[in-house]
């Protein structure tokens, strides 16, 4: 997919080198460094205001970089406009041109590049067909559903054959059913095109499902970057463990530990480590049941267990209970300073 065949093989599609973004006195992105290998589905994940969108916009060239460098395919693009970076961005609100029909929206970037009308319309029709909207070419964006608008936006971004596709919360405006469908579609597209996608989201599920490389950000810094499984099994700190969910943050003799909620059990404390509390809530989730536990003087804990195990010995809210875990499942976390 590299359009510059003469360039020696690059190792990373995108490299951020100590990238910083300041707005006046506030630092939105604080010296972020990241290497994204070739053809990676990368998710930038974090709570709102963590700097993930600013980072994406700096890669896109829509935000001036205060300090540091951005490299795309080994070329320093820090001061280049978007079109020379070979990136294409899909905006959160899709940003379709309301006065142009779908065909002209998709063909817009070709028009900007001076491609003659018949040629650009032919190619725009191809891309509309790829997102199954060939019958909607003459419609205005306002006449389409949210999901259809999103597909037009996707076609418009892809028609430039970008090296990197940047997606700013692409699924946030969709209803949950459609979200799952589009998620699959995005992953399939990324595999087929063999280019890097950088996808900003605040949803852990979305990032886990999609990412080859998951980057967890907080307060303008990267807390942890790695494959989702690695992050889930070995969260770098208590923030990451809490943010990705599914973990109980506990203390044992040595310090702070994280234990996956599905590895914890309710039961009679034996010799092993345990913590006593009271059942606060029971949530039936189909194949599993989550029991929330309130502990005096501590954060709420939870135990996730298969439904058959729960119903073999059910508990009721208000009952005394103890949460037990095996030291084998304890993952040590650095003590918060």
């Amino acid at each position: 997919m590299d359009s510059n065949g003469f360039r020696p093989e690059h190792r990373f599609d995108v490299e951020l080198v100590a990238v910083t973004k300041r707005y006046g006195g506030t630092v939105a992105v604080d010296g972020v460094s990241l290497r994204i290998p070739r053809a990676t589905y990368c998710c930038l994940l974090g709570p709102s205001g963590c700097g993930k969108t600013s980072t994406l916009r700096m890669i896109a060239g829509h935000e001036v970089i205060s300090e540091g460098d951005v490299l795309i395919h080994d070329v320093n693009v820090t001061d280049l406009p978007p079109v020379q970076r070979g990136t294409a961005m899909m905006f959160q609100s899709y940003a379709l041109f309301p006065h142009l029909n779908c065909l002209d929206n998709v063909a817009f970037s070709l028009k900007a590049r001076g491609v003659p009308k018949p040629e650009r319309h032919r190619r725009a029709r191809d891309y509309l067909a790829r997102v199954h909207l060939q019958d909607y070419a003459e419609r205005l964006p306002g006449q389409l559903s949210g999901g259809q608008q999103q597909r037009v936006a996707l076609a418009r971004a892809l028609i430039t054959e970008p090296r990197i596709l940047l997606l700013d919360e692409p699924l946030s405006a969709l209803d949950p059913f459609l979200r799952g469908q589009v998620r699959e579609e995005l992953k399939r597209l990324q595999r087929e095109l063999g280019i890097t996608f950088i996808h900003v989201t605040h949803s852990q599920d979305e990032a886990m499902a999609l990412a080859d490389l998951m980057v967890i950000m907080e307060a303008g810094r990267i807390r942890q970057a790695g494959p989702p499984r690695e992050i889930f099994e070995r969260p770098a700190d208590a923030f990451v463990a809490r943010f990705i969910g599914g973990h109980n943050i506990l203390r044992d003799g040595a310090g702070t530990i994280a234990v996956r909620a599905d590895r914890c059990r309710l039961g009679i404390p034996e010799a092993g480590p345990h913590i006593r509390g009271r059942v606060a809530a029971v949530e039936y989730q189909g194949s599993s049941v989550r029991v929330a536990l309130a502990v005096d003087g501590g954060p709420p804990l939870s135990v996730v267990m298969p439904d058959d195990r729960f119903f073999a010995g059910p508990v009721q809210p208000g009952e005394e209970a103890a949460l037990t875990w095996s030291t084998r499942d304890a993952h040590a976390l650095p003590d918060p300073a």
Partner: protein
Amino acid sequence: MEAVGQATAFTAPARARRRPRLTSEAISWLQVGPLAFILIVFFALPTVLFLVVSFFDYDRTGIYPAFMLDNYREVLTTPATLRIYVSSLKFAFIVWAITLLLGFSIAHFLVFHVRSAAVRTVLFLLCAIPFWTSGIIRTIAWIPFLGRNGAFNQALIDLHLIDQPLEFLLFSPFAVCVTYVHLFTLLMIGPIANSLAKIDPALLEAARDAGASRWRTMVDVVIPLSKTGIALGSILVFTQVMGDFFVVKQMSGGQSASIVSALATEIQAMQYPPAAASAMLLVLFVAIMVAGMMRVVDVRKELVR
């Protein structure tokens, strides 16, 4: 049937307890009423009166109820009518072009280039505050500036750029245009700024992301999305220039006549019926032009390129 009866019986006491309310129809009438009253009394009735009078007969001493088309025949056959319409249209076109360019540029600057809301408000006020004074004063204020011995000529002479004062500055079509532009640019800025402010900034980013130059973004995105504002501003400026009386009278030095000044001459001569006829002609003409402009914009909107 029974179920309905029961339901009514059940809700009836609740209704009775409510305070009496105006029906929605009555509320609508109340809302429309004041403006409708003003428009009918101060606009529609006088216009109808003019329409009636325009068919009347007259002589040096008075006007006489009649139904005759002579007034219209006279207005439409006098060569002077065509001349002043052409002259007014020429002014209207020049002033429209200049105010459009100026107004669009200023509005674009205010909406897209001024980042701080406070600075934007201050700049908007700077545009608007001069308009709290009367148009007549703002017109006359140009005379000491543009005159033969005015500030501008004096400055050019002091700078040794010219030896003789420039004569064309005042009491000329040039002076008329300058004054019109000064008076009416705000009428362009307002509607255009309003429609520009409605453009989602993400659209401009999307255009840039697609590789569009500033110029392409302007032509393909900004201008199409602000065309309602442009049309509205154009209508305001056009109607103002076509209906002007004072500026042409003061600034042209008698070299140009406007439609309304010709009409004023007839009124001074107590020739009300022909004056009414030319007023009706002007109203009709401007209405047709405005309808034409609205059509251009709406048709484009419907066709949706």
